[in-house]
């Protein structure tokens, strides 16, 4: 049985009195310890799926199940112990007036988990930040360091599932490499399940076992990693996405 099961999911927003169908009947299943990628251009609904899982988007149809269980509304504490999210922009996702220590210890306080000191120190160590960063503020950190803090925060409650919304697209190429390496190491060490969104096919290919290509809120094509590398996609849209990938540019 798959860990994350999304069946015929639809999300509809209302903008200026008119309905906007952000996600239209998307189904997918992610197995335990699998890494699953969602690719598509802006507005294709890939981030909205992650937000719908967290209860941050108005679901208008379909079901989401985690470990076979439908999700409660509102999501509640048990959910946040299982599922955590890392956002795209590390400049916007950390509280600017909270120290790193406060950001990392807040989930522990909410869930009544003790040993705060030891856990915060260990969390920093796990993501490769020196312990001296503990009492700094986000503005004293670089973009890559902030994203490490965001990853540490997501892992404080030891979730099984990490939702990654373009975790490296705000970072430089070299910092991106370090962050991707960190994520892969943590996944192997902790047996995490990843659901990752990116518009960069090369990043998705490096990180994920299976890929779903999306366009206009709909699923276009699901591909295993091997099919992507072999350029064996069936639909024209997936082909064009592959052709536009920056990775291809050096070969032409």
């Amino acid at each position, binding site marked *: 049985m798959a860990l994350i099961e999304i069946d015929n999911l639809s999300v509809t927003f209302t903008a200026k009195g008119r309905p906007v169908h952000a996600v239209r009947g998307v189904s997918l299943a992610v197995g335990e310890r699998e890494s699953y990628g969602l690719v598509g*251009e*802006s*507005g294709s609904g890939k981030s909205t799926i992650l937000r719908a899982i967290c209860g941050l988007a108005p679901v208008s149809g379909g079901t989401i199940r985690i470990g076979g269980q439908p999700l409660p509304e509102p999501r509640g504490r048990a959910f946040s112990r299982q599922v955590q999210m890392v956002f795209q922009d590390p400049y916007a996702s950390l509280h600017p007036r909270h120290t790193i220590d406060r950001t990392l210890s807040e989930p522990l306080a909410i869930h009544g988990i003790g040993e705060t000191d030891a856990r915060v120190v260990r969390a920093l160590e796990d993501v490769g930040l020196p312990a001296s960063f503990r009492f700094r503020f986000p503005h004293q950190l*670089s*973009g890559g360091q902030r994203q490490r803090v965001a990853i540490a925060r997501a892992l404080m409650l030891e979730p099984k599932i990490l939702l990654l919304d373009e975790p490296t697209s705000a970072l*430089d*190429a*070299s*910092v*991106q*490499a*370090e962050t*991707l*390496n960190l994520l*892969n*190491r943590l996944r192997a060490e902790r047996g995490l399940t990843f659901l990752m969104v990116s*518009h*960069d*096919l*090369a*990043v998705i*290919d*490096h*990180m994920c076992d299976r890929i779903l290509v999306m366009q206009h809120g709909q699923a276009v094509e699901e591909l295993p990693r091997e099919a*992507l*590398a*072999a350029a064996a996609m069936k639909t024209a849209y997936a082909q*064009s*996405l*592959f052709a*536009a*990938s*920056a*990775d*291809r*540019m*050096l070969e*032409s």
Partner: protein
Amino acid sequence: MTLLSVQNLRVSFDTEAGLVEAVRGVSFSLGRERLGIVGESGSGKTQTGRAVLRLIRPPGRIEADRMDFDGQNLMTASEREMRALRGRRIAMVMQDPKYSLNPVMKVGAQLMEGLRQRDRLGRAEAHAKAVAALDAVQIRDPERVMEAYPHELSGGMGQRVMIAMMLIPDPDLLIADEPTSALDVTVQAEVLSILDGLVRTRGMGLIFISHDLRLVARFCDRVLVMFKGRVVEELAARDLMQARHPYTQGLLNCLPRIGGPRVPLPALDRNAEWAR
């Protein structure tokens, strides 16, 4: 023919934490060709671009042994002479349309502002020219975009509007500072091909600033690789895969590739001898 020549350019800032040298002795010359400047955040690539237009405010300082544009010395030019150059002869496309367009002014009014003020055109003529400029960057419904506010446009549309705006005065040199890094891959390819076509047909010089080495390799004739304010390597874009400098190689290798091996990506060694 050399359009721009820069020798030993230095940009420094006096900050509370002491002197910060953002650019430390950069030299290059540019004809009517496409030059790429690549580097990580903080390598000084943007400051190099801004220094050419003297867009660095005190306490920032620009020093250079020489900085000539088309026979004119940019270091000794008066503010008035610089203003005559900016926009008209040297234009700059900024990174993010969200922050670079005026949020409370319609796109059309922004496009027409320069034409009306600088070129003293009448309203109808300015409107026609602005629509033509939007057309040139392949905006399908220019009349609608003219009436839109920047927040009503997508990132790709906003970036095209900025390119259109910069190209209206037909500059000789275009400085594009990460013009596509806020965009999606598919839109990115589209905007780049528009920019490429315009540069070719108008015979402009182009300085293309980016942190994406692959993009620059595809798009430029020549590449400068910058690290900590210095140029560490200069090479023809087609020879990029044969780059010799370890920093350039590091930048190339740290990018994941489709179908590449599932091993940790090589990280850059910033403590090597050359990094000092």
